[in-house]
């Protein structure tokens, strides 16, 4: 057992600030209580050195007493077995925190009292100031149970506050209990606990808990909530219908995401264009303005555009998680994913990967087995994310006529579906290969509590979405803006005097109107980016790509959809009136040597496959560095996905040409 160093203090009467430490079992309503206490006044960070989420926030307890709230990860006991639980353990035994008086608030699920009291009893034996918040009292009532709160509080030697955190009932009472808290050394829950090993210690504790509950918990009949959950499970995890229902939910989810996000995405795109134009018109001409508008502003637009899709996807995931369905999906998928070296829990990052790999990779933290977590992180970027959609849409429209049918389906739609499927299959295949390559002594388990079904707690859902989107904006945002600026430099400057010569040439021509795009395109060709594109042309020629595609592949490292913008600039030659859409320009493009069309079916398919597989995303690389704690895995991932993309594109090009 650990020696806790939480500061002992008699009362909080003369204190101005207290640190509240929230501890509790998973699914005990800890986040609900945390959200009720802190509201928007919370920050999500990391515990030092580990990738475990640390939530902190502030709350006013009384007019004179403020509190800093720390939400520790949910844990079943004080014997750590996962990174999350290790953090709780380490935090409680950290000896370096002496700045504030501390009070531990143990959240216990009253409808599952026996199990929840185990952790509570271990925490009580740490002999630190403790209050027990007995949550989910509404369920206790619904299940026709009754708890003798006063007796329980006497038995445990600490205050017990009943509450229903989902609607915020009992929060005021908890604050009152905190303000009036008086520390008295509690009775030891079990004697001499240090001498026993974890297992017998647990058994002794449970024996005592059972004795207490015999006197304090009155059961008047059968549990209603468990019965309801069994009924719903009959359908949702049915061996056949369960899978159909999951596929249906998935299908509806993506339908909704794509159809609902179109409009706001258009608004954002146009808004950024209009405001960017406004910026460049009002600001004085010059390098700084160019950098601001074409570098920073364009980069910012490239991130914000994905917010509708990411918000929607995380809304659905948060709702599914909060109702308890997502745990069932993990259960349904475990048998399949296990064969590929993954875990049922991997389904959450894999789903999230369809929006953006950055937050998805972070959600792999719930997987306690290190190898399974690594494999999940490794394969998640292969799932087609929303940044690929603009690229897919443009290329598909370019090489496949809209009226073409495959059987009764629209061929364009079929190819789009196929690309998503390709990503998913590649992810599973890669994982299968890695399963044999990455060695691990750690045994794999899938022991997970399936919480009873509940209505989603909207406050929790909202907070989850808010935190995820913020995380995406910050994590992906800073990388994308940085890369955008670098790319702006590479495409605005070139070696030698060529760039100035082009400027002078156009200036000499005089008739500048309508030629600006042509000028930009010629300059891009002579820029560092242009030279880079030409330098890699011999390498990508076997895939059917020319140097222009080469430039776009390079610029796509900021974010994949930059491809579309780069193409728009590159193909402005010969269209001084600027009347053609980018699609029409690309359709007309010809190879100067052979006079053949550049975007044949072979090149188009090859490029599609390339974008499906290649890891062209610096933000993902950065997050993998963070999550795996080094450069080894992200570099392997970058190389692997690059080779995979190259080979696949090569094969596709050879087949279709």
């Amino acid at each position: 057992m650990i020696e806790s160093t939480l500061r002992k203090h008699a009362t909080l009467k003369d204190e101005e600030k207290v640190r509240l430490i929230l501890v509790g079992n998973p699914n005990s309503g800890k986040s609900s209580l945390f959200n009720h206490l802190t509201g928007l006044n919370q920050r999500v960070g990391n515990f030092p050195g580990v990738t475990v989420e640390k939530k902190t926030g502030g709350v006013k307890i009384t007019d004179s007493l403020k509190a800093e709230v720390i939400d520790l990860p949910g844990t079943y006991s004080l014997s750590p077995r996962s990174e999350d639980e290790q953090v709780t353990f380490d935090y409680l035994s950290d000896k370096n925190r002496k700045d504030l008086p501390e009070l531990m608030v143990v959240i216990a699920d009253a409808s599952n009292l026996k199990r929840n009291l185990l952790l509570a009893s271990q925490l009580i034996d740490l002999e630190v100031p403790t209050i027990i918040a007995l949550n989910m009292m509404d369920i206790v009532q619904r299940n026709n149970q009754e708890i003798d709160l006063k007796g329980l509080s006497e038995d445990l030697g600490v205050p017990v506050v009943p509450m229903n955190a989902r609607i915020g009932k009992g929060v005021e009472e908890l604050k009152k209990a905190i303000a009036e808290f008086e520390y008295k050394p509690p009775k030891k829950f079990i004697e001499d606990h240090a001498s026993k090993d974890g297992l017998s210690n647990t058994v002794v504790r449970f024996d005592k808990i059972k004795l207490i509950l015999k006197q304090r918990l009155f059961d008047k009949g059968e549990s209603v909530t468990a019965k309801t959950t069994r009924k719903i499970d009959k359908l949702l995890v049915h061996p056949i219908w369960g899978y159909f229902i999951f596929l249906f939910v998935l299908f509806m989810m993506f339908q909704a995401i794509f159809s609902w996000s179109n409009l706001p995405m258009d608004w954002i795109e146009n808004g950024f264009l209009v405001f960017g134009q406004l910026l460049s018109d009002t600001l004085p001409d010059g390098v700084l303005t160019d950098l601001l508008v074409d570098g920073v502003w364009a980069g910012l637009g490239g991130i914000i555009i994905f917010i509708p899709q990411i918000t929607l996807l995380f809304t659905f995931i948060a709702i599914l998680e909060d109702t308890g369905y997502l745990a069932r999906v993990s259960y349904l998928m475990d048998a399949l994913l296990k064969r590929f070296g993954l875990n049922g829990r991997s389904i959450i990052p894999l789903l999230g990967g369809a929006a953006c790999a950055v937050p998805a990779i972070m959600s792999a933290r719930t997987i306690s087995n290190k190898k399974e977590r690594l494999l999940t992180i490794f394969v998640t970027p292969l799932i087609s994310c929303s940044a690929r959609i603009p690229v897919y849409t443009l290329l598909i429209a370019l090489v496949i006529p809209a009226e073409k049918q495959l059987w009764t389906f629209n061929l364009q739609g079929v190819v789009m579906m196929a690309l998503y499927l390709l990503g998913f299959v590649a992810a599973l295949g890669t994982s299968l290969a890695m399963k044999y390559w990455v060695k691990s002594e750690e045994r794999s388990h899938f022991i997970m509590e399936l919480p009873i079904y509940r209505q989603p707690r909207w406050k929790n859902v909202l907070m989850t979405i808010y935190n995820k989107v913020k995380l995406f904006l910050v994590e992906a945002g800073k990388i994308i803006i940085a890369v955008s600026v670098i790319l702006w430099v590479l495409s605005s400057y070139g070696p030698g005097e060529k760039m100035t010569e082009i400027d002078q040439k156009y200036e000499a021509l005089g008739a500048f109107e309508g030629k600006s795009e042509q000028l930009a395109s010629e300059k891009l060709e002579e820029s560092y980016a242009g030279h880079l594109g030409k330098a890699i042309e011999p390498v990508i020629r076997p895939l059917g790509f020319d140097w222009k595609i080469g430039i776009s592949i390079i610029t796509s490292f900021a974010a994949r959809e930059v491809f579309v913008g780069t193409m728009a600039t590159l193909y402005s030659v010969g269209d001084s009136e600027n009347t053609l859409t980018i699609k029409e320009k690309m359709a007309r493009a010809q190879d100067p040597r052979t006079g053949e069309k550049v975007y044949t079916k072979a090149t188009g398919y090859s490029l599609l496959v390339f974008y499906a597989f290649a890891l062209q995303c610096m933000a993902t690389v950065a997050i993998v560095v963070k999550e795996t704690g080094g450069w080894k895995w992200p570099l392997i991932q970058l190389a692997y996905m690059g080779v995979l993309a190259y080979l696949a594109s090569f094969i596709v090009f050879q087949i279709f040409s």
Partner: protein
Amino acid sequence: MEEVLDSQLSIQLYCMGCLPGEKITIERIAPFGDPMIISVEDTFISLRKDDAHKICVKRTES
């Protein structure tokens, strides 16, 4: 339930309320026998067949 033949696993299960003397019900088994959902009192726990094999139980009259 009588005992769990793996100390790592047992502590994990004990902490979830799945202990000697408790009544375990097998709620359902996924296709191909893996994984399964068991319940102890009102807690539903999913676990794999490999781990379930290590839990010693005695059949009770239902």
